[in-house]
């Protein structure tokens, strides 16, 4: 079964590219346009990975991340934070509140895919075959 990815970002152009990229890489993809929508979709869709933009209306990526980490049944979901800011303090903050990795825009498609598959492989190990 294909791994599931939720893309949470309010920037339509990057969403289009990311959706195309992830689908082409064999993931099942859903899109959220803001923080609230992202949390609702995680509940119903239960993704393996969430690509979480930091700057979103209504609820920031940091908040979504914190709310996810407060849910015991969502601990296995990998969180990749995406941000155009990427100061060192922001990266530290993202990692401190529970993100698995932090990717600064602009990024290379190949690197992003490599990071996601790396995270999933790592997460699969303990419970894997």
């Amino acid at each position, binding site marked *: 079964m294909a791994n599931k990815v939720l893309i949470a970002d309010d920037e339509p152009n990057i969403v289009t590219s990311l959706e195309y990229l992830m689908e082409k890489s064999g993931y099942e993809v859903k899109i959220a346009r803001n923080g609230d929508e992202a949390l609702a979709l995680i509940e119903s869709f239960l993704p393996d990975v969430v690509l979480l933009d930091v700057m979103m209306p209504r*609820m*920031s990526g*940091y*908040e979504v991340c*914190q*709310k996810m980490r*407060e849910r015991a049944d969502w601990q296995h979901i990998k969180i990749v934070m995406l941000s155009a800011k990427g*100061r*060192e*303090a*922001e990266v*530290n*903050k993202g990692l*401190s*509140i529970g993100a698995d990795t932090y990717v*600064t825009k*602009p*990024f*290379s498609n190949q690197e992003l895919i490599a990071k996601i598959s790396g995270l999933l492989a790592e997460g699969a190990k303990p419970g894997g075959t």
Partner: protein
Amino acid sequence: MKRKLKFAIWLGVLFDGVLIFIAAVALLAASGLARDEQDALRQILEERAPLLVCAALLLLVLCGGVVGWLFRNYVGAVDALAEQTRTVLSATPEGRIVATGGAEVMGLAAAINRLLDAYRSQHLDLDVKIAEAGSRLEEERNRLAALMSELSQGVLLCNAEGRILLYNEHARMLFARAEASGSQHSLVGLGRSVFALLDRDQVAHALDKIQYGLDRDANSPVTRFLATVARSRLVKVQVAPFLSADLRIAGMVLTLEDVTDAAGQEARRRSLLQALAMQVRQPVANIRAAAENLVSHPDMSDEKRSVFAGIIAGESRDLSVTINDALREHADALKQGISLEDMPVADLVNVARRRIDTLLGLPTGVDRVDDHLWVKVDSYAFAQVLASLAARLSEEYGVREIRFRAAAAGGFLELDLVWSGAIVASDALTLWETEPMQLGAEETPLTIRDVLERHGGEVWRQSHPQSYTSWFRFLLPLAVPAPVKPRRSVPLESRPEYYDFDLFRNADAAQGLAGQRLSSLHYTVFDTETTGLEPSAGDEIISIGAVRIVNGRLLKGEVYEQLVNPKRSVPRDSVRVHGIKASDLQDQPTIGEALPAFHRFCEDTVLVAHNAAFDMRFLELKEAATGVRFSQPLLDTLLLSAVVHPSLDDHRLEAIAERLGLRVIGRHTALGDALVTGDIFLRLLPLLAERGIETLGQAIEVSRETYYARLQY
């Protein structure tokens, strides 16, 4: 003699008076007698003549006794009283008058004693008051100096001629740092000209502007300019005048701030913007052209399409690299503004705790704060952030106590604001971060996010459900602790050496030095150590030490000390004298580098040295090579000592010091000897004055005579 004469006159007058009186009475009595009775009386008198003479003598003795008694008890006693009163008034201020004589004289003496007592107690009161006022003034001056030394800016106080009356440590360091590499000597010194430090035209222009403001009744005319000091540092100078009673500019206060770093950062920020604007334009143009081609021609061939797509991919890849590189390269420039200062974290926490206590009355505590952690922070704004969060927690969640803890993590400080119990919704912080901070009556348009952005910091909420504690974790860039500067404490009893308001009274000393009094001149007392005694045979200077004398004070805080690389070996014999080895000199400047700095140190002063001819021969031999000429007037303590003590032969430094009651410490280091020479020179000045040698011209003249006298020996 005088008194005896007076006695004789009094006695004569009294004796003659009585005789004349008796004779007159006898004549009067005899005039009524008959002729024969008169003859009989004359006969009796002639027969009794010896008896009459005896009676007259007795009368004389009697008169002598009366006049003697009168003299003892009155005339002489009053004279003695006057004499004693004069002595007490002029010579023995504590003495009392002890009178002998008549009761009236004793009464007068008692009255004079009472008058003396009253006079004395008033005098004493006055003396005490004068001493108190003097020490209060001195204390205030010292307090001012202490205050100045604590200021984070450099301060120079100058009189109208630009002579420095007061400076603080920061000003000294500012110009010391600007000095030639390796050299730590500052041109800041009492009585020195400010124009040696700053461009004369710039200062003059500033004063013109101030005068213009004064002429138009401006309230506090102040001007500012930017100056480059000694090639490298950029200094913001603020000039404020102080005015005399008739509203003329009597002097100026210069406040100096080193803005080199801030200006550098601003320049880097500008160059980042320029770099981005320049480097981003071209790739964006390429991407746009390619993308518009793709959009406008949906029917283009697959081959062409893939060419344009390749262009877009390639250009955007380069663009990403450019932006990332630029941001990384200019990270420093973006990090912080100039209002941030380095501060120990413990202090920051204390500021915040005081604020929370004052504004909210909320108890606070500290769990652990590492003592050696420093942050770059705007402490006021950041304490406000912490206090406003504490206020929110207390008002909206009923939190009763706030605790702080801090630790280093990577290049960051993790500062936690911790509370127990209340679970704070995760979106609460997001809301609080973006609303203007409010603290009681204090309101500011700033948000927590604004402050954090300025600090390059972040904040988030964390919690530990097991212990029911939660915290807001702040991430702030750590700072390198500022080096602890040796603090120059200012003892209130003694006069600090870095101000001298008496210089106010000094006229500009540059003109007509020869006629000036020795006590009012500024001196540089110096000494050198050398590889040997023969400069013409290749011996070289290896150390120069100097100290300044201003207004009769040896300024031990304004010294020059420099080892010099002689570019030759140091003979063992000479090492035995001064203890300086060739290896100590390897990394030191050459004489060509050191001498110009020393020359600047001596500017506008009279040179003083012991056996000056020796040191001057070394300096003169370097004139051609260094282009530096020491043309100042020169005094030699050896010759001056010979002037003061012509009968003595030993005028070595130790011998003179011993004669003048000075202790010699640190001999045979250039600075140590210069300090001793300075002390000796100051002790020689009053001895020269006793001989009527009070001006520089006189001192030079008598030295010359002594010099020739010694040569003829």
